[in-house]
């Protein structure tokens, strides 16, 4: 198959996979095999597109017109390539993890779970490959709807309440603001195709562009920018693999990815610098970064702390996009990758602790490093990466983001990044320190090593090591992202 064909098939493969999973529902082993096969195939397909894009190609395919002038079309550019690679790769360890977790937890409705998971991944790939804002919006909305059953999986009143917040905010912002912005863009520009030079330059007054910018930014609720971040902590009621892949990677990254797409390909980097519609956005992003970090400090529930940490980290990417300098865009793109590996590791660890030791509160995890040393070591690596310390991948993204802030002559945002790193240390390190070095004494001390099931343990080690490798080999991602900022003076 040529790269063009692959681009056309890849987003739909998981949709087919979901159908097969549903049919295989009565036989759990076959069903899980289908998930793994779909995940593997998807990764192979996406990876096969990578060389073309690395060489500067833009493989794409137009499927059909929905209404005249608006088509379902895919075109892979570097940012989408990166996002698709992350989502498709991480789906494999996450599927293995799901099998271990869901069986150890004796969850019900597993067929619905795996089918919806596949649908969500297909939608994420669709978002990543979209060639125009319409296609992106289509998959963006499908992603919201098909992750809803995953959030409410438990079916408890709390899950239902969280599901309402989840869907209410995601659909509400996207239909209320984003769709309006998209249609307005269409009326102004006459097209919704992503163009490297942007769509809006010279099409509207600066005031209109500023309003549009705000509509887009708040309309992309998946980026979890305050005040529309509440859905993300609410989504933590879902099974942990969902929190790990969807609410640390696929869904939230679809959000920040959309923000970057809109900034780079709808507004255009030139327009961002000349018309400056978003001078307020770096400030709001900074506010979100710091406030969410402070809230994370107060959370004793591990998943809740991770969720607020995610809210905070997502705004790094928004900050990068909104500064719109070449380094900050590279940094934002890198952070999509680095944070994905770091945060999924942390969630895997949280789930492993939940399954093995049945603990969800951080205060109960004192001394747990002695019974689950590998898990907690992986947790340490993940935490270091999210904090942005060597030798972990997160170092690079923070590095470039800080460079971007300096490039924009906005030293204040460098300071924000530094304070945030300190806050990250404050809310992650005590967990690790208490786990390893504080002896709870008595009952806990002599239980010996009791790690999570292998199906849970292996994936979290893979992603932790992945985080480490990304520190050593960040170059492919870096080269990929440099292609986007070429219109600007390449540093």
């Amino acid at each position, binding site marked *: 198959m040529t790269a063009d064909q692959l681009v056309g098939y890849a987003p739909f493969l998981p949709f087919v996979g979901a159908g097969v999973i549903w049919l295989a529902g009565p036989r759990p082993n076959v069903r899980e095999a289908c998930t793994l096969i779909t995940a593997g195939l998807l990764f192979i397909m996406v990876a096969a597109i990578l060389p073309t894009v690395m060489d500067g190609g833009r493989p794409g395919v137009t499927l*059909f017109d*929905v*209404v*005249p002038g*608006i088509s*379902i079309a895919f075109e892979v550019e570097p940012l989408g390539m990166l996002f698709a690679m992350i989502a498709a790769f991480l789906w494999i360890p996450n599927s293995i993890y799901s099998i271990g977790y869901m069986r150890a937890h004796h969850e019900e409705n597993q067929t619905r779970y795996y089918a919806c998971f596949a649908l969500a991944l297909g939608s994420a790939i669709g978002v990543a490959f979209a060639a125009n804002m*319409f296609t992106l*919006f*289509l998959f963006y*909305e*499908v992603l919201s*709807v098909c992750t809803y*059953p995953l959030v*409410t999986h438990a*079916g408890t009143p709390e*899950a*239902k309440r969280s*599901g*309402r917040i989840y*869907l*209410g905010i995601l*659909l*509400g912002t996207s*239909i*209320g603001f984003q*769709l*309006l912005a998209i*249609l*307005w863009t*269409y*009326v102004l520009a006459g097209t919704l195709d992503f163009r490297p030079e942007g769509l809006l330059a010279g099409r509207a007054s600066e005031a209109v562009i500023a309003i549009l910018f705000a509509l887009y930014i708040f309309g992309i609720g998946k980026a979890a920018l305050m005040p529309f971040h509440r859905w993300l902590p609410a989504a933590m009621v879902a099974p942990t693999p969902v929190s790990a892949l969807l609410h640390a990677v696929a869904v939230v990254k679809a959000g920040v990815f959309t923000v970057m797409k809109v900034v780079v390909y709808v507004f255009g980097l030139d327009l961002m610098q000349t018309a400056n519609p978003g001078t307020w956005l770096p400030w709001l992003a900074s506010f979100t970064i710091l406030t969410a970090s402070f809230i994370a400090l107060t959370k004793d529930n591990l998943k809740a702390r991770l969720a607020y940490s995610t809210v905070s980290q997502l705004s790094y990417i928004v900050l990068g996009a909104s500064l719109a300098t070449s380094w900050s865009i590279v940094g934002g793109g890198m952070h999509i990758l680095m944070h994905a590996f770091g945060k999924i590791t942390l969630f895997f660890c949280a789930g492993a602790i939940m399954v093995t030791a049945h603990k969800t509160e951080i205060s109960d995890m004192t001394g747990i490093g002695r019974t689950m040393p590998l898990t907690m070591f992986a947790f340490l690596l993940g935490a270091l990466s999210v904090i942005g310390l060597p030798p972990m991948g997160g170092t690079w993204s923070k590095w470039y983001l800080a460079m971007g802030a300096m490039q924009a002559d906005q030293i204040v945002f460098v300071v924000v990044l530094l304070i945030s790193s300190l806050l990250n240390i404050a809310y992650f390190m005590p967990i690790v320190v208490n786990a390893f070095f504080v002896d709870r004494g008595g009952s806990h001390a002599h239980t010996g090593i009791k790690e999570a099931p292998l199906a849970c343990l292996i994936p979290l080690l893979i992603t932790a090591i992945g985080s480490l490798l990304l520190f050593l080999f960040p170059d492919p991602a870096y080269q990929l992202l440099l292609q986007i900022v070429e219109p600007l003076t390449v540093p």
Partner: protein
Amino acid sequence: MIAANLPALQVVLPLAGAPICAILGRRWYGWLIATALCWATFAISVLLYVQVAENGPISYMLGNWMAPWGIEYRLDRIGALVLIIVSGIAAVSAPFAFHSVHAEIPEDQHRYFYTAFLLAMTGLLGMAITGDVFNLFVFLEISSLSSYALISLGRDRKALFASFQYLILGTIGATFIVIGIGLIYMMTGTLNMADLAVRLPAVAGNRVVDAGFVFILVGVAIKLAVFPLHLWLPNAYAYAPSVVSAFLAATATKVAAYMMFRFVFTVFGVEFSFDQMQLSWLLVPLALIAAVTGSLVAIFQDDLKRLLAYSSVAQIGYIVLGIGLATQDSVTAAVVHLFNHALMKGALFMALGAVMLRVGSVDINAIRGLGARMPLTMAAIVIGGLSLIGVPATVGFITKWYLVIAALETGWWEIAVIVLFSSLLAIIYVWRIVEAAYFSEPSETGATVTEAPWPMVASTWVLAAACLYFGLDTRLPVGAATEAARALLGGTP
């Protein structure tokens, strides 16, 4: 020979079938006759649509009496599309009716049910095909009278009152229409639509014409259930038998909307309606109020059929809004929504019919936990619901797309905001249903039910699948609507 007479057959076939059904329709024969006729009628409308799409509008002189003295049947794109909607929904309803009617209507009344059903269809088809305003009124009465009868067949005794309420309001509406027709006949001496369109501008500015316009408009608005003239609709839909709710919700208001298109754009013309009578200033605010209040009230309904009925009030608001803005895109949106709304409401009411059959109630508590018991029916409800919200890849999105673009193009961004706000309200009422169906413990009766019989599921799913299909492949509805909008705004019938 037959091909040339298709326009007449379109109406005559169900009309002639009705008495046959009444005489021979014992046991399940009535159903058989009605089903066969529905399908034949559908085939004819498809053939007619193809003819119109290929060769342009069809003009057919009944009994070869030349217009404007004889009655002319005149079929253009929008009329042909409405024919497809009516006969298509009827064709899908027929298989559905078998089990549903059996469960909800006493057996000795089955033949009369199918007779009334065929007559209602005759009336609706006739209204869409005729080119003569008085003939239009006659067909309106045929469809109205038979719908009153159909609604009154509902199991609940409140159905009688609902039917009576509709009878009173519907009769007032029809009377207004006939008064209006009389007034314009007085001024022009003709009843033929095309002829009226030619002659009316000459007498425009006359109070009598203005009064005729207002009478007709109010009359049509009652039949269309435009806010605040919608009061008959929730009861009628809620208490009618399931098949009737599905059929009428999907078709009756659509044909009423078609009447509004015809009178406003074809008979009176854009210039008269919008420049002289300033119709936009009446329709747009009412439409927006309908879109918001209809959705708001729907949120608080526990009876799901009533919930859908209020949702219809809101959705009709979209159609009226499209008419009121009177631009190419807005009229396209309105015409597309005729088609789209028929699909979604048809699917939703049919799914509720299946619930009614199995659980015996369509209260929100009755569907608790049915997601696992009746997976196909409930999935159809989810698809229909997503369509009501206007999620991309459903038909509802296409309507919203054109409507919001039309609003933005005319510079009315406030309208765009209100339309989108109304979709947000739809999320709330749709999600009440989803939560009840999938994430609640089943009620006592709900715990033991099984999926509905396959003909009902199949019918529901034909429409649900169409909601998705036509949300992506929009060539048929949007193509027809764009053509129709161009013709309507261009003034040629």
